[in-house]
């Protein structure tokens, strides 16, 4: 539409590929290739091997994966409950209350995640609530960090909700609890599941706050990847990274299946 000549179009596409492929496609391919290589210091990796995957899916690494999964699922469920509740409560408030809740629940995005980690560390390393050294401090920090995203996506969906349905249900005599449970939540289900996917992906890759907080017996996968690359085992790090990406994508795909089934209801 913008470029009409054939030569011009091909030139534009060539520039696009020259920018896009090295910047975005190559890094992911390089990680994938490196995770399968024994050695790489030329144009191409040498010696295909799956040994690293054997190592990446057993022992400490397997434990790191389950740690990440448990943390991400728990944090997503908590964040969805907290953020979804707040978004639904905000919808029934007038302008000022809504704006106040908006600002409050979006604040964790603006605060650097390292600082969220520091704050949680400072607050819960001393009585009355001593969480430092337990897995709960990591889960708490992840929940705080992803709640903002859960709130934002649910709030956006609530705004788009057609009020006719709930008014009709209420007019037919349904109690507010019944309207919420049988009308609003089912209508919100697609956005709730996509918010859950977002929270899960963010929590799976969270490194900044986790580095401040993790106890030795609760090391999530990103920390394990950093530990591997920091001691020079780049290839192990790459295999772990592929495990992380695959798990995230699999869960996201599963979550989006729920969404498509819900939208037929």
């Amino acid at each position, binding site marked *: 539409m913008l470029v009409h000549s054939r030569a011009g179009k091909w030139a534009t596409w060539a520039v696009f590929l020259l920018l896009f492929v090295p910047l*975005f496609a190559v*890094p992911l391919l390089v990680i994938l290739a490196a995770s399968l290589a024994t050695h790489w210091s030329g144009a191409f990796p040498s010696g295909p091997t799956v040994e690293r995957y054997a190592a990446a899916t057993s022992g400490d690494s397997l434990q790191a994966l389950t740690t990440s999964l448990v943390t991400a699922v728990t944090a997503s469920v908590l964040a969805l409950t907290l953020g979804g509740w707040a978004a639904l409560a905000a919808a*029934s408030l007038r302008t000022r209350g809504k704006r*106040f809740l908006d600002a409050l629940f979006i604040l964790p995005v603006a*605060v650097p995640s390292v600082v969220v980690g520091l704050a949680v560390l400072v607050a819960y390393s001393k009585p009355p609530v001593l969480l430092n050294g337990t897995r709960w401090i990591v889960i708490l920090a992840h929940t705080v960090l992803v709640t903002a995203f859960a709130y934002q996506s649910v709030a956006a969906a609530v705004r788009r909700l057609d009020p006719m349905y709930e008014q009709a249900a209420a007019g037919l005599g349904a109690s507010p609890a019944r309207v919420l449970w049988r009308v609003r939540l089912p209508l919100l289900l697609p956005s709730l599941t996509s918010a859950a996917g977002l929270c899960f*992906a963010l929590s799976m890759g969270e490194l900044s706050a986790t580095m401040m907080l993790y106890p030795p017996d609760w090391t999530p996968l990103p920390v394990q990847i950093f530990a591997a*690359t920091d001691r020079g085992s780049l290839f192990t790090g*790459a295999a772990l990274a592929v495990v*992380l990406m695959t798990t995230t994508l699999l869960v996201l795909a599963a979550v989006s299946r729920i969404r498509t089934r819900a939208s037929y209801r």
Partner: protein
Amino acid sequence: MTATTGTARTGAAVTATAAAPARSRTVPAWVWALPPVAVLALAFLYPLTLVVQQSFTPDEGGLSLDPYAEVFASASFRDALTTTVWLALGSTAGCLVLGFVLALVIAFVPFPGGKAVARFVDVFLSFPSFLITLALLFIYGSVGMANGLWTGATGAADGPFHFLTTPWGVLLAEITYFTPFVMRPLLAAFSQLDTGQLEVASSLGAGPVRIIRRVILPEALPALAAGGSLVLVMCLNEFGIVLFTGAKGVTTLPMLVYSKAILESDYAAACVVAVVNIAISVGLYSLYRVVSRRAGA
């Protein structure tokens, strides 16, 4: 603690007086907002106030501005501040230019597979940032591809690529990782642009450059502003990319918070840096909210 929940309650109470008459028979609406606000206050606002409090408390105890004076006077803090700001500004500028060009091609010079590229960008967003640095280590690292090719071809003992442990390596990684955050709002804005406008401009004799400058750019400005300020805030707060380069020479504010708190156990100084970092990024993020609301995003 009581102070934060106190302000939260009064804030909700203000709105309650407005909402109460409509629902006088049941529980007022603001009561339902209290539990999540209370949880957030306990999990997030209370820790945050402790950080601010600790930043005014030197090791000897008492309440003073000494920690601030000490940190502001240190060269490492001033270095970190300038590095953080110029890296964030440079990355944002790079992301805006690159994101604009790429989104322009996807939207207005469509090619087969363009949809797949747009979906790839979405997938890219769900990966953590440090993967980019990890990949760059394989490509440009001291024993990576590029240096290996060079030493193989010339027989030299050492390759020419050492920029990865300098700020330039961080800049490259940040531009790569954050460009999709600019492309997404731009693609959304372009999809709403009436292509008839482009056809009219084109049939009136305007060249592509002129069309971009006079028709597309004005339409894209709100999306560019919103995406750009979001990326600016995220770059200011980026930690994983800097940590993974393993460069001693590149220290940003989040990195300084980490090294002061975890490596040196100097919590007062870490809290001071944290407060500065919060001030900068919350200020910029509020600006982003205002801009994106104006843009109708």
